[in-house]
């Protein structure tokens, strides 16, 4: 399965269009934070931008940490989210090694589901849906 990747973040202009699109279309929120992809500056605007998003772990530590099955392993990496099962304990947030899961003040969690709907909103072509193949010879 394809995954959302951000291979060209050196082209990012920091407009937040991707985050806003995710919040708007996936989560029905107006936000630059309640989104599966979030743009941060890497030490002030002078040093460019970084995209914080799910890196599609397999196995995913957040799915392993989730006590209710709200997050389950997605084939090919990442997680499937069932919000109705979420008790907002925040254990997934703490378990993510790259801080890819955010939680708003109501406790709701936001993580990339690799749907790719944000891609078309990036005016700089920073984002791409990619089939991630593990290079031959890499031990897993």
């Amino acid at each position, binding site marked *: 399965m394809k995954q959302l990747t951000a291979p060209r973040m050196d082209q990012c202009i*920091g407009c937040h269009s991707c985050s806003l699109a995710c919040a708007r279309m996936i989560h029905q929120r*107006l936000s630059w*934070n309640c989104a599966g992809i979030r743009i941060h500056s890497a*030490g002030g605007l002078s040093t460019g931008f970084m995209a914080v998003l799910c890196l599609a772990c397999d196995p995913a530590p957040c799915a392993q940490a989730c006590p209710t099955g709200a997050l389950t392993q997605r084939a090919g990496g990442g997680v499937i989210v069932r919000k109705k099962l979420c008790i907002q304990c925040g254990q997934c947030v703490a378990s993510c090694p790259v801080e890819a899961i955010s939680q708003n*003040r109501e406790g709701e969690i936001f993580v990339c589901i690799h749907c790719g709907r944000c891609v078309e909103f990036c005016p700089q072509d920073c984002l791409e849906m990619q089939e991630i193949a593990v290079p031959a010879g890499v031990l897993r």
Partner: protein
Amino acid sequence: MIREQFRILHFDLGAGKGRIEQIDGRNQAAGGSGLAALLYSRFGLADQPWNADGQPLIFAIGPLTGYFPLMSKTVCSFKSGYHNQYTESHAGGRTAFALRFADLDALVIVGKARRLSSLFIGARHLEIRDVEFMRGTEADTAGKLLRRMFGEGSGHRSILRIGPAGEIGSAMAAINVDSYRHFGRLGGGALMGAKNLKGIIIHGDGDFPLPAGSAYAKVFKEVYSQATSTDMMRKYYNLGTAGNLQGLNDLASLPWNNLQKTCDPAITGITGEAFADATLLRNGACSGCPVGCVHIGYIREKTLKDNRYHYHQVAYDYEPIFAAGTMLGVTRPFDVLRILDVMEKVCLDAMSAGVALAWATEASEQGLISEKETVVRLRFGDSDAYQQAAGFLGRGENDFYRLLGQGTLRAAEVHGGAEFACVLGQEMAGYATGELFFAAQTLGFRHSHLDTAAYSYDQKNAERDVTKAVDFLIADEPGRTFLTSMVACLFARSVYTDSRLAECLSAVGYETLAGSIPETAEHIRRLRWRMRLATGFNPSALTIPKRFYQVKTWKGVIDREYLDALKLEYGKRILALAGPDQETAGES
């Protein structure tokens, strides 16, 4: 958050306390420019000096901020130390989104902190901290320190700060916004300095449900598509506004050497293409703007022996290049950026500072001032000298520079040379396009080239019809006022027509505003002018220096009679605006 009332944070620096207020008036003031004027009418001290402790410093966003692309700017309003009257300054960056997601329509700061302080704001955060240790720090250093002090929210916060110019009360002091944008003109930085307020950090950590129904998604998609998939915005992200340098020079409308001339063959070294080819490092965007018009160049400095270098990133645009380039006779892009870099650090408005130094150069040439005043010898084209002078101006090196920082005409009152002071209400913008622009900037609400499209009118109209020209100014202003009440970037004015704005407002639930744009625009225009008049605006007190009557553009030498008639008529029409609205005229 969509709501009929405005939700504002009123913070008293003296008491160290804030309060949230809900204020009526959405359907009359809309937001942005209108809200700022409404708040000044409520909290401002029209008859007291600009730096009285109680004077408010206001930051306001609009009803569409965050909801649609390019609704990305913030209006800052205050009583200016430059002319002791009410004014506005506008900036992009992240401030608008940070305020939106801090769930504030406006921030009103009053009082004076006992010691130099910074204010930290979020949807769930309000704190003032002592930063006396930052006194005298430059804007970039202050930004780094503030980022360290308030570690949360990287990418989702806005950091406003002043440099030395604001701390010394220079009427040319800017407020730096997120390193590369500014509330530049008319000395907002001085008011922060007067309040002992070094920085403001706004963390946008809230979120809201989307408007109900399908209309919002549909209108958003159309607007986004229009803003990104056509050539409409290409000029802004390609060469950016710097692309206008060649065209203005070709039209003999680009001020050079303190407006001693309006075109010069040396333009070839300093065009938008020249800047892009040699200095452009990358582009940036205001939050919520997919266009990305921010152009960031670089300078590289050899500071030690051998190959030891450091580099700085410096934003550029048409206006700063005019002010630190052609106006000073500086014709190499890296030299322009070096001057701008100093202005950024001391946090001066580049346009005001460049024009002031251009006057000082000509005053030096004429022997009205000497190095006793300027410390360094000023000569057109000498960029090293201008780098030093910019620092002197920003830090208030001596009495002369402190006086010059209050305005070029203030310095000319003491030293002479008022006839060649390039001041049109404030230091001129980079458009020597003709009579209408000179009259319009002199009397315009912000003394900005963006108050009206006078500079564009000049470039397209050779006829000298006073009534037609002033009618154009009067008719052009309300639409811009409504856009700056939303608060849209004015680069998007071709996207956001009145009908499109009505669709946007309706889609998010502001039905009444959507149905009354022309009336609301007119009401806001009058509200703003009333604030300006209440604080002392008098069109007949503003004069146009002799230099502007000597300008030669593509239409020939300026027509004195036409220019004077335009100014007189425009002044009359502005004063008429201060009368009661038609809808309220019968109430008293």
